[in-house]
């Protein structure tokens, strides 16, 4: 218990990942979904870095994490832009009403 190893980080990331999924699924607010995605990506990052630390010993995991963060930012930017468009059209941010205008 007292020696922190790879498994600790892995369990943590698994739980955060699941919470991210839970967040994506339960939030009807589009931004909630975005937040869920961020959680998921963070969990993945923790994994990458932890592996880098305990397994490979090189900084490759860090590089991946950098790119993930970068992509997360990009995703957030585009996502929010889309949601604003969505909001402008529907006057709501509730994703469940997204298909109401289809027909």
């Amino acid at each position, binding site marked *: 218990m007292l*020696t922190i190893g*790879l*498994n*600790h*980080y*892995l*369990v*943590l990331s*698994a*739980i*955060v990942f*699941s*919470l*991210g*999924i*839970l*967040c994506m*699924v*339960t939030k*009807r*607010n*589009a*931004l*909630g979904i*975005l*937040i869920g995605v*961020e*959680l998921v990506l*963070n969990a993945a*990052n*923790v994994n990458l*870095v*932890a592996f*880098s*630390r*305990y*397994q*490979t*010993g*090189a*900084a490759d995991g*860090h*590089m991946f*994490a*950098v790119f993930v*963060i970068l*992509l997360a*930012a*990009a995703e*957030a*930017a*585009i996502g*929010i*832009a889309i*949601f*604003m*468009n969505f*909001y*402008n059209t529907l006057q709501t*941010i509730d994703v469940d009403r997204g298909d109401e205008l289809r027909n």
Partner: protein
Amino acid sequence: MLEALAFYIFAAVTLVSAIGVVASRNIVRSAVCLLGTLGGVACLYFLLNANLLAAIQLIVYAGGTLILIVFGVMLTSKSPWVVFDPTRGQVVGAVIVSILLATGLCMLLVGNEWPAGTAMTASPHVKDVGTMLLTDYLVPFEAASVLLLVVMIGAAYLARPEK
């Protein structure tokens, strides 16, 4: 010993705030809780010898993305306190699924015998990281820059006011 203590504290911060993200009914609170998670993760990066990454995490995520989200919240709701609740059934189902998922992931990750690897002894220097970025990872780096450009234009296009 100290490391363990630090890990448990940071992990607790991360988890509690992540739960807060999921559990809070309005989106502003979620965003605030997310800040906690991001910070917790950043701290964990320190523990993992990834100092630079921790910094990036704080600057880009907490400083950029989160702000973006908060702006998004403000721009897209008549009142930031508007609540859309999922039905009880949805919640129950989702919780079951995520518990299952977490169990599965834990079992997978923990139960596996990872081959013995080399542990990292010290945090990589920023210089080393920069060198890697411009040598081994040059192509993804350039691609990422193009992507960011595209995102910038795309976001601007999408979010432009209605004609």
